[in-house]
């Protein structure tokens, strides 16, 4: 059983050995140094996707503040990174320059960084970065990186590689997952080595609120679409999950103002049949003489914040019993898919920080050892491969994702147990075996043996499919590792 700390230590050891092997090679040493620094950092979560797919809005929704997009006055940045800090501060740099602190002001969308006169206009291949320190609880364990939309476009794969190189995990936003999106995700998946497991990608269908013309049931339809898409083998092979969410509604819901709520409550007071005609189109909703009870500016503001679909949804929610701002905010966040997305990020990314960090580092190491092998270091490569084969967490994560999405179908009880044993409810041994903290060593041993035994016989049940047998093997491996760990720790 490789625990998170142990995994981290082993990766550190590999890094140290690699540093030793590559001493004298400046470029390689620099990359290893960077990898070592990143290994110690919090998880980097990139939000990527084509232009206008709602990346910055989602960043704001996740942080719970209006910070994105953070851009210098002279053009957009390639990567804007948001991290926790005691007070709002910002740095800005391009390419290999040293970061220098800049002042920032809030603008209508996001933050504007004053770069000063020294900056040159952005070149096409220049990588411009902004780092924003912002006090936020959401950023404590994760850094969120907002990416330039142009990176997800174009025929070449360099954009995708830049994004995937930048982050440990990626939220890929797209309106409807089509060929070019899949191509982008393909570029982020390696052909071999540690990057083969796409355990670091969640796809977000970000135009969920506009599905079927933005009817109040749009989100439900969108969720169905997402469920269907995540079961597609082609999509499942490229990401951990597909989630339908509306960053627009989610963000507005998280930041819902009291007067916004009041305006919505006022609107909800109208008769359904009276209000219906005005909710047909954005034009009608913001017409000057439309709804006398709510001033046109308020209606306009609501429309911009929530979108027409969001307004319809919010009014329906108020009518069906959301009587306070907090209540409405909560329900809207739920309906917008933000909650689901947050829990998916927490479960698949934040809780698996060590695994994802190890993946990033080992990918760098693997690439380095392949492209410029150090003399006489064949055994080093073999060692990494051994480590990777042993890094069972990747397989666990993939099986968890397959169970979540229904790509692998197990009987309900078995599925729940498998999810638990694979670490879906927490990666410690106690959590995996569902043991209370005060359980005795004997209990734990017997439970572990029982679980291993059950999963050893699982493939022998009549009518199991090959996918189910493979899943059972992986769960059995997890059980074996629990037993090994128990043995090693002499419990």
């Amino acid at each position: 059983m490789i625990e998170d700390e142990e995994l981290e230590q082993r990766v550190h050891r590999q890094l140290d050995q690699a540093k030793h092997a590559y001493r004298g090679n400046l470029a390689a040493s620099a990359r290893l140094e960077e990898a070592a620094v990143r290994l110690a950092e919090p998880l980097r979560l990139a939000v990527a996707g084509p232009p206008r797919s709602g990346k910055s809005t989602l960043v704001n929704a996740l942080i719970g503040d209006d910070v994105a997009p953070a851009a210098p006055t002279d053009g957009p940045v390639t990567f804007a990174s948001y991290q926790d800090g005691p007070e709002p501060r910002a740095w800005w740099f391009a390419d290999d320059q040293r970061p220098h602190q800049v002042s920032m002001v809030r603008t209508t969308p996001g933050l504007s960084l004053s770069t000063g006169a020294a900056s040159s206009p952005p070149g096409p291949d220049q990588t411009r970065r902004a780092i924003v320190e912002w006090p936020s609880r959401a950023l404590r364990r994760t850094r969120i990186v907002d990416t330039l939309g142009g990176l997800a476009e174009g025929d070449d794969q360099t954009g995708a590689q830049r994004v995937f190189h930048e982050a440990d995990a990626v939220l890929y936003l797209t309106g409807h997952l089509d060929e070019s999106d899949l191509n982008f995700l393909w570029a982020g998946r390696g052909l071999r080595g540690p990057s083969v497991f796409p355990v670091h990608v969640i796809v977000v269908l970000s135009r969920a609120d506009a599905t079927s013309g933005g009817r109040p049931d749009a989100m439900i339809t969108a969720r169905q679409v997402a469920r269907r898409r995540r079961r597609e083998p082609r999509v499942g092979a490229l990401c951990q999950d597909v989630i339908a969410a509306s960053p627009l509604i989610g963000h507005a819901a998280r930041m819902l103002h009291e007067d916004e709520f009041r305006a919505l409550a006022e609107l909800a007071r109208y008769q359904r049949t009276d209000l219906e005609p005005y909710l047909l189109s954005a034009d009608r909703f913001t017409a000057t003489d439309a709804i006398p009870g709510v001033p046109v500016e308020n209606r306009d503001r609501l429309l911009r914040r929530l979108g027409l679909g969001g307004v319809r949804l919010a009014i329906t929610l108020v009518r069906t019993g959301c009587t306070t701002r907090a209540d409405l905010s909560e329900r809207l966040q739920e309906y917008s898919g933000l909650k689901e997305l947050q829990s998916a990020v927490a479960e698949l990314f934040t809780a698996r920080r060590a695994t994802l960090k190890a993946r990033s580092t080992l990918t760098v190491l693997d690439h380095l050892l392949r492209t410029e092998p150090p003399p006489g270091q064949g055994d080093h490569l073999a060692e990494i491969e051994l480590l990777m084969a042993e890094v069972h967490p990747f397989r666990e994560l993939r099986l968890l994702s397959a169970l979540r999405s229904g790509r692998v179908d197990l009987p309900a009880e078995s599925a729940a147990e498998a999810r638990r044993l694979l670490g879906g409810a927490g990666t410690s041994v106690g959590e995996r075996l569902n043991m209370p903290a005060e359980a005795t060593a004997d209990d734990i041993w017997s439970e572990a043996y029982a679980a291993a035994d059950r999963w050893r016989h699982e493939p022998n049940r009549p009518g199991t499919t090959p996918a189910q047998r493979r899943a059972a093997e992986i769960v059995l491996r997890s059980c074996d590792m629990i037993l090994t760990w128990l043995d090693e720790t002499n419990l």
Partner: protein
Amino acid sequence: MGNWEAGPTAYAGPTSLIPLNRAMPDPLRAADAPLSWLDVMDATIRACSAHGRAEIANWLARRRTRMLEPQLRVLVAGAAKQGKSQLINALINATVCGVPDHGGTTVPAVIRHADSPVADLVRRDSPSAEWIGDVALRDRIPLALEQLDTAILQTAARLPAATPLHADIGVPRALLAGGLVLIDTPPLTGLPGRGADAVAQARDLTTGAGADLVLFTCEANRDLSDAEMVVLTDLARLFPTLMVVLTKADYAPDWRHHLTRNRERLSRAGVPASIAAVSASLRLHAVKAGDAGLNTESGFPDLIVRLQQLLAAKPDQLATATAAVLSRTVLERLAKPLRAQLTADQASEASEAVARLHATQRRLDDLRRCTGRWQNKLADEVGDLMSDIEHDLRERTRAVLSEVDEFFTTADPAKNWDEFEPWLRESIEDLTRTSLTWLVERAQWMARKVADEFPPDAGDVLPAEMFAVPDELVDGPGGLDAPAVATFSASQKLFIGLRGSYGGVIMFGLVTSLTGMSLINPISIGGGALFGGKSIRDESKALLKRRQVEARTAVQRHVDDIFVRLTKDARDTVRRIQRTLRDHFTAVTEDLQEAVMESLRSAKADADREVAARDQRARTVQHELAQLSALSQQSRALAAGPKRQAIPAQRSAS
């Protein structure tokens, strides 16, 4: 036409009897009668065939047939999820096209008027086969009318993958009764991000579906992307007017802003497109509620009016405009390779023949320059050689003479002459041979030096036989007789001895007479003998000296003679060599010049021929281009013709 004017200047173009202005329309037409679009179309098709572009000609012929039909086939195209199917559903107020939530349209659907609802799936023979025309019964698969989109999907799934298919749907609608046909299409791949495939795909779709008009959809909450602009610009080459419809206007608060920006973008790009914003969901609501105001708000009435205007305009304005655009596009296509050929011909000024001519001229110049050079070189070298050989001879003879001098300081010519004379002869022979060998070597070296002055491509210009050292010397030095020096004979010795002894006898006799001895006594006789001996010795020494001097003088004279003769011989030889070399190299130069002149003449002839051929080709191409441009002018005249009014532009829905 006979071939009597065949030759480089003869007209080598097509010798057809068709008049050159065959693109001109019917001569029976009144001169001021406006052109008909059919004339221009036919002329363009003929031009395509004449230029060997049968595929374009076929394609144009198909478009021509299409334009003569009363139907107006409207192809609805665009990126994925832009509301294409919904637009059609809303236009005809029936759910015939796919539900957008389920993966989008995969099978194109042709929606036309029918007295009672009917739907078939049509299997085409090949992807490029036309959609229009009679379909064999076995290729027509009837579809269930309920749940049409699922029926299409299920039926299509039963057929082998990649079968070219389209659905043929007939609905009883007044809107379609006039001949309007709507065609729903699968999304263009790559849009809105990338448009590389979409351009070709859009072309194939419009060609296959036989579209008369393209209606391009785009969501109202965004601007047209660059890739979409590329597709539209390309379509504008095939269609005189496009329609860009911004869909889902109800859901986009900023649709007016995007409408304005998109309109500006299209007009900046020179795409003749009318643009409007519509809302399918408002239209469906309006129809359901029977709300005329809402219907107007949806933008659809304006769209329908516009479509009906175009339908009415089809046989006349639309056809004319289409013919004008098509013929212009096609003619540009035809003219492009011709123009490229023309510029390429003009650019390749230094063709092979001309380059060869220039090279040959350069060679001739080189040769002329080298003539002067080698003559100078020869003269210089000969002068050097002369002075060198003279100096060399002098040095060598002086060496011989100094040896002779040394020899005769001790040796007695009278005694040693016999051994001296052969040595001298040998020395002189040696000298002569060495000198001559050296002379010949120098001459050979000189010949090579002169030959080096010739250009390297002249080949081996050295004389075939080089000068060899003559076996026999020109004239042997001959013997040298001993100088006639009188020898010291015995009587002379006696006389000299007596003359010397006389003084001694007297001297010693007088001295001894004082002692009383007679004058002749033994002592005086002894003294006389002493004196006589000395005289003889002195005399013989003086004689030896004289002999040596004489011998030296004789040898010197002899050697001088030989030197003079040798010098003369050497000079003669050098002159002879000079003359030989000069004659040889002059002959070589003349030969070379003759050869170069010959190749110059042929290169010149080649170059002339080539220039003539190129001019000829350029004339032909220009002629063809002129024809094309005349045709193109006609198409432009058609576009701006008096009969044509601009297809009424439509204001956007508000």
